[in-house]
C-alpha cells in the first residue's frame, strides 16, 4: 500500500502490521496527552511536585533525555569534524534520536512551567546570568540545528527525493552538514554544561553546589563529559532495540564497537573526574559551610547507597566493560553496559535534582521525600511513545541505515 514510500532494496513489514504497531503506541500516547491536558487545564496541583520539590521527575527527565540526546551531536562531531568515516553508518540514526530527545525536552518543559503561554519571556526578558537562560537559548537553537540535520533525511525519502528540487536541496544540506554539525557541537557542549550549571550554581544548596572554573561550577564540565559518554551508548541501545524489533542487523558490529570504545573511554574518564569531584566536594566544599557530607545521606531513601550505585554499579562497571575489547565485543555485555551507562545518567540527574531538594538545608527543617505521580509518569513517558513512532516512521520510510541493504540482502 505504501510501498512507493519505502526505501529501495529493503524489506518492511506489511502496512497492516505497521498500522497496528502505531495504533498500539497511540494508546499510551493518548494517556500522556490526557495527563498533559490535566496539567494545563487544572494547573500543576495535578502532580506530586510541591514547594519542597519545585523540580521533580520532569526536570530529571529533561536533564536525562538531553544527555541521552548528546549521541546526536557527539556522533556528528566524530563523523563530520573528527572524520571518523565509519560512523556515517549510524550518524543518521543518532540524529533521529537526538531530534526526539530534544523535542521531548522542550515538550516536557512546556508542561512543567506554571505559565506555558508566557514561556517566551525566557527569551524576551532573558536574565543572562541564569543558567536556565543559557540552557533555553542553546537547547532551542540546537533543536533547530537538529531539525536542519533531520530534514535531509526526510528529503531522502524515495518519493520526495524524486522531486528534483528536493533532491537538490538534500544535496546542499549534505554539503553544509559539517558546518551545521560544528554549530551543533558548539551549542551542544554549551548547554550540556549549562544543564550541569543548573544545580551546580545553587550556592544555597550545599548538596548540589560546586566550586569551579570562572563562572562555571565543576558540574558544568562533568555534565558535558557524562552526556557525551552516555549519548553514544543510548544510540547503541536504541539501535539494538530497533534491531530486535525488526529482527534485522542494521549496523555493522564494528561500527557499534567503535562507538562503544569511544563512549567507554569517555565514561571512564568521567568516572575518574566524578570521583575526584566527589572527594573534593566532600572534603572541602561541603565542610566549608559546616556540613559533613555524610549528613547529606543521613535519610533514607537517599542513603549512601545512591552514591555507590551511581558511581560504582552504573559508572565503573559499564566503563570497564566498554573499554575492554572482550567486554564490548560481547553483544550482551555491550548492551548491558550501554543500559547501565544510560541508567547511570538518569540516576545522576535524579540525584542532582531530587536529592538536592530533599536534603533540608535549614537544620531545623524537615526532610522530605518525593515520588512522581501518574500524571508525571504519563507525561514523561509520552516522548517514549512518540519517539517510538517517529523512529518507526523514519525507519520505514527513510534510508536511515546505510548498511541495511548490505547486511540484509533480499
Amino acid at each position, binding site marked *: 500500500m505504501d510501498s512507493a514510500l519505502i526505501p529501495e532494496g529493503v524489506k518492511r513489514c506489511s502496512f497492516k502490521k505497521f498500522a497496528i504497531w502505531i495504533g498500539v503506541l497511540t494508546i499510551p500516547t493518548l494517556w500522556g496527552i490526557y495527563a498533559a491536558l490535566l496539567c494545563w487545564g487544572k*494547573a500543576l496541583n495535578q502532580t506530586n511536585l510541591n514547594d519542597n520539590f519545585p523540580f521533580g521527575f520532569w526536570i530529571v527527565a529533561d536533564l536525562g533525555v538531553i544527555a541521552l540526546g548528546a549521541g546526536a551531536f557527539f556522533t556528528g562531531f566524530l563523523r563530520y569534524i573528527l572524520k571518523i568515516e565509519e560512523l556515517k553508518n549510524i550518524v543518521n540514526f543518532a540524529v533521529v534520536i537526538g531530534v526526539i530527545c530534544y523535542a521531548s525536552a522542550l515538550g516536557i518543559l512546556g508542561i512543567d512551567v506554571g505559565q506555558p503561554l508566557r514561556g517566551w519571556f525566557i527569551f524576551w526578558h532573558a536574565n543572562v546570568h541564569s543558567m536556565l537562560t543559557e540552557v533555553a537559548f542553546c537547547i532551542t537553537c540546537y533543536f533547530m540545528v537538529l531539525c536542519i540535520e533531520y530534514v535531509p533525511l526526510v528529503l531522502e525519502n524515495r518519493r520526495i527525493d524524486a522531486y528534483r528540487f528536493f533532491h537538490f536541496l538534500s544535496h546542499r544540506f549534505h554539503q553544509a552538514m559539517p558546518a551545521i554539525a560544528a554549530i551543533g557541537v558548539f551549542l551542544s557542549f554549551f548547554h550540556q554544561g549549562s544543564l550541569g550549571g543548573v544545580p551546580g550554581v545553587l550556592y544555597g544548596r550545599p548538596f548540589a553546589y560546586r566550586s569551579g572554573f570562572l563562572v562555571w561550577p565543576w558540574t558544568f564540565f562533568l555534565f558535558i563529559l557524562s552526556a557525551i559518554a552516555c549519548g553514544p551508548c543510548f544510540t547503541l541501545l536504541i539501535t539494538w532495540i530497533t534491531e530486535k524489533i525488526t529482527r534485522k542487523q542494521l549496523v555493522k558490529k564494528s561500527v557499534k564497537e567503535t562507538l562503544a570504545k569511544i563512549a567507554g573511554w569517555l565514561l571512564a574518564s568521567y568516572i575518574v573526574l566524578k570521583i575526584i569531584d566527589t572527594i573534593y566536594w566532600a572534603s572541602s566544599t561541603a565542610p566549608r559551610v559546616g556540613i559533613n557530607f555524610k549528613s547529606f545521606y543521613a535519610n533514607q531513601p537517599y542513603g549512601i547507597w545512591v552514591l555507590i550505585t551511581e558511581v560504582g554499579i552504573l559508572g565503573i562497571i559499564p566503563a570497564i566493560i566498554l573499554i575492554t575489547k572482550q567486554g564490548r565485543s560481547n553483544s550482551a555485555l555491550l548492551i548491558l553496559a550501554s543500559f547501565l551507562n544510560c541508567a547511570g545518567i538518569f540516576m545522576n540527574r535524579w540525584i542532582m535534582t531530587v536529592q538536592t531538594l530533599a536534603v533540608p538545608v535549614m537544620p531545623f527543617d524537615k526532610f522530605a521525600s518525593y515520588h512522581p505521580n501518574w500524571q508525571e509518569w504519563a507525561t514523561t513517558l509520552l516522548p517514549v511513545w512518540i519517539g517510538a513512532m517517529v523512529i518507526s516512521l523514519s525507519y520505514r520510510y527513510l534510508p536511515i541505515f546505510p548498511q541495511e541493504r548490505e547486511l540484509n540482502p533480499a
Partner: protein
Amino acid sequence: MKDIHSEQKTYKFGMVIDLDKCTGCGACMVACMAENNVSFRADETDKLRSITWMRVYKMTNGLPFPDTEVCYIPRPCMHCEGSGHHRPAPCIAVCPATATDRDHETGIVSQIYTRCFGCRYCMAACPYHARYFNWWDPKWPKGMEKYLNPDVSPRMRGVVEKCSFCYHRFQRAKNKAYAEGRREIREDEYQTACAQACPAGAITFGDLNNPQHAVYKLKNSPNAFRILEKLGTNPKVYYLSTKEWVRRGVDHYLEEEAQD
C-alpha cells in the same frame, strides 16, 4: 532631563526578630496573609503546598522529656544580599526571565508575578523555603474578595510568590512623602505588616544602614545571628537569642567546630 537617580537615597531595609520574645503565636503569619492577599484553601495541612510568606518554624533542642526545649523561628523572605554583583541572592541569580531582582533603592528582593512563568528554579535555589508556588488558581469564597488589598496584586496559578517586606507600604509611604515634597521617609512610616502586628514586639523593621533606626543597633548585638550564615547568602533578616543552642541550631557545624 535631570538625573533623578542621583538624588535618590538608598536604604537597606532589614528585620531583626527577637526569638526570646517571639511566642510563636502566628499573628505575623496572618497579618502577612491579610495584608498581601495570600489565598487559602479548605485543606492547608500539606505545608509543602501552603502559601505562607511568613512562616513560623519550630525548633527543638532534641532532648527527651522533661529537658525538651522549643524555640519558634518566624521566617520571612531573607532578602539575601549575596556578595555583590557576581553573586547576588541565590534566587535572583537563577531566574531566567528577570522576574525577581534586587531593588537598588531598598535592597529588597522583588518578585513580579506577571513576569514569572513558573519555572520554579528560584525555589530550588532558596535554602530558606521562602518562595511559594501557586499550585492552584487562587479562589476566595464568595464575598470574601471584598477584603482584598488593592495595593497588592493577587497572584494567578503557576507563578512563584514570596514576602516583599510589604514593599507596597514603602510605595505608599514614599507617595505621601512626595506629595509633601519630601524624598526621604521616616522609620515609622514604613513598617511591614508582621512587624506592626506582632503582639510581642519581637519584630523590628528598618534601615540596616541607618544608625538612627532600631534595627541598626539590634543587629550589632552580641546575640544577633542569621540563619545559614555560612552559605554566604548574606540575609537581611537577623535574629536575637540569648540561648546558645538556638544560635547554634540555625546553621551547620562540623563536630570538631568548637562552641562559640
